[in-house]
């Protein structure tokens, strides 16, 4: 009654109020982020233009650190490893995640048990996971020699983390083992919001399972899928913990990524200014990826 009258009278006021609440709702996020991340990052930007050991005063060197990075062979080799890592993580865990989530969404019996089981590796601290796999993949006591005793010798004596060729994929394998179950969970949660009627409609139209997956499932979870792709790319640029724990970038730099290289620069070689520049280079690259994403969004992609 009175409500209806007020509403028609001031649509403008309502919009203004909505705008105000929108910004009010952003306040906690922005405050905390400015305090903890943006503020200290400004200092990091400053340090990236200095020669600084991490303690004591920093000496302004302008763009020198950035110039050094461009000429740093180790940096480019590490970045290449980041790209390989990105390729692995854009395919393997996302593929496994889609498969697992789709299959789970199609069943009701034991669904809960499966999703708990898939998720367990994600729960465990990285130090423990890493050590577990170091034991399992040990060349002389691990799974390879165990298989050899039952007549499957092709993995016997293979040193997964000690070989230049295998170290990077082997660490990626361990990280993926810990990560893919989480991707299943992300996709499954998104799948639950997909309208069941759409599947029924697709079935009516004679779509087989694969067609249902492509035409109903994928569009239904598009926002989550894009999100996972983005965090995968960014996460792969920043990857640090499993590599640092298992190989520390070795043997002979074969699994070095920019994250581990940067950490060594800052805390082993005490080139904190150089490390800051390297880190900002990483952030810049992540920024580029995101700009592309936003561009696509503006082009009308609902993501």
């Amino acid at each position, binding site marked *: 009654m009175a409500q209806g009258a007020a509403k028609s009278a001031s649509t403008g006021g309502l919009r203004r109020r909505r705008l105000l609440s929108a910004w009010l709702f952003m306040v906690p996020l922005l405050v905390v982020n400015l305090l903890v991340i943006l503020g200290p990052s400004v200092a990091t930007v400053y340090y990236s233009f200095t020669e600084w*050991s*991490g*303690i*004591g*005063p920093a000496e302004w060197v302008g763009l020198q650190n950035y110039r050094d990075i461009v000429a740093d062979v180790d940096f480019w080799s590490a970045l290449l490893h980041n790209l390989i890592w990105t390729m692995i993580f854009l395919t393997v865990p996302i593929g496994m995640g889609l498969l697992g989530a789709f299959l789970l969404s199609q069943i009701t019996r034991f669904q809960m048990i499966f999703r708990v089981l898939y998720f367990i590796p994600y729960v465990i601290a990285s130090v423990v996971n890493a050590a577990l796999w*170091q034991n399992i993949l*040990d*060349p*002389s*006591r691990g799974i390879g020699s165990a298989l050899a005793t039952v007549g499957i010798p092709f993995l016997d*004596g293979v*040193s*997964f*983390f*000690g*070989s*230049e060729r295998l170290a990077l994929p082997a660490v990626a394998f361990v990280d993926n083992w810990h990560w893919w179950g989480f991707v299943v969970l992300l996709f499954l949660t998104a799948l639950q919001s997909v309208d069941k009627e759409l599947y029924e409609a697709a079935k009516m139209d004679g779509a087989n399972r694969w067609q249902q997956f492509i035409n109903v499932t994928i569009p239904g979870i598009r926002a989550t899928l894009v999100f996972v792709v983005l965090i995968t790319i960014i996460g792969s640029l920043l990857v640090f913990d499993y590599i640092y724990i298992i*190989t*520390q*970038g*070795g*043997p*002979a*730099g*074969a699994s070095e990524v920019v994250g581990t290289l940067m950490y*060594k620069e800052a*805390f*082993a*070689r*005490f080139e904190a200014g150089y490390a800051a520049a390297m880190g900002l280079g990483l952030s810049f690259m992540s920024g580029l990826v995101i700009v592309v994403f936003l561009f696509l969004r503006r082009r009308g992609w609902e993501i």
Partner: protein
Amino acid sequence: MHAHISRRQFLARGGKAALGVGLAGSLLSGCGGGGGGGGQVTYWSNLEGSGPQAYFKKSIEKPFEKANGGTDLKVTFQPPDEMDRLVRTALQGGEGPDIIMTPGPAYAQEYIDANLFAELDDYSSEYKWEDKLLGWALDLGRYEDKLYAIPYQLQTMLLYYNKTLFEDKGMAPPKNRDELEAMAEELQGQGITPFAAGIGDDPAAIEWFPTVFWNHYSGPDALYQALTGEIPFSDPIFVEAIDLFNSYVQKGWFGGSQEKFFSNGFDALHADLGDGKAGTNVEGSWFLATINDYFENSGDAWDWAPLPPLRSGVPAELYELGIGSTLSVNGRAENAEGAAAFIDYLVADKKRAAEWMAAVPSAFNAPLPFSESDFPSSMDERVARQLAALSQATNQGNFGYTAWTFWPSKSDVYIQEEMQKVLTGDITAAEFCRGLDEQFTEERKEGAVPKIIKPGGAA
């Protein structure tokens, strides 16, 4: 009492920390306070394991607080791998403990350059450290003739061997390169890994091996010359040492194969030694702390021997000198007096240090002139023998240098990273040494090389 403390705080905060410390120290001793003097002292320790930590609390922290009435020692056990990063972060943020531990003299120097450590000369005379501690150790803590750091956790590299296995095979620890190579061939021929080795748990540990080969092949005199800038690290004598190590690795002597060398973890390689699957192990004296655990299962006996000379002209018994940490007083410490008192209590008392070293074998060796009779009977004979040997070696001059103590930090990191590339064949030993020379020369120019003590003659 209160007046003293606030005066000390005032002076310390005024920037001239050293002056404040000196003044307060003399004022306090003037009061007849002895050591300590109340208040809180914070200390971050790199001590690991709940057993040793419990020992520390019971036998060092509590008695210290009792002996220095009113002083409250607040200990935080920090993981050794993280310690230096944590100290840096805290000091840069204006915090940090009163007693600061660094991973060695080369690291300490940087803090001193940044004016973060208090001068210790007044305490040194107050507590008579000159009389008690080994002279060279104190020298290592001096910068521009002022004392800032006390070296702690003395280490050396040893050749551990499975004694039972050696006796069964009628073998003895090698005394020279020929014997060493004969031993390795013999063991490998029988399917036993000559040297249990691997850097899977800690790739930086690769530095142990260039350290050993440079000392026992190139020799301490050559190293002294290189470290003081007289000859370059690209000198053939260093290249040959690296080539020798590399050839041993490629033969599978270290850890079984080149790839296994990169992936073997410490527990696995230690178990190999204990089980007789490997004959020997080249490792630091810290391994004495846990070696017994790995021999429990087989019941075998173990012992250690000095690493043999690999070239004629190198001393037959040579111990490379390593320092696991240094202790300093934070320039901003409010209770610098109490901090110094604790350093004295922890490091300089022979009897207490010997008991501590018996309780946690060889992990926290104080730089004191020990002989075997100084140690309690509870100490393992092999541990006592090692401690006495190292102590005597530093007096008699038959010592060498470890990379993590005498090389400046970037050169040390260079060794850790690039040595791997020699083993994988990405670079040659000569290229490796040339790169090291460049890095070292640069750091030497910056004054980052710690004081190098001369081997050979008595100090």
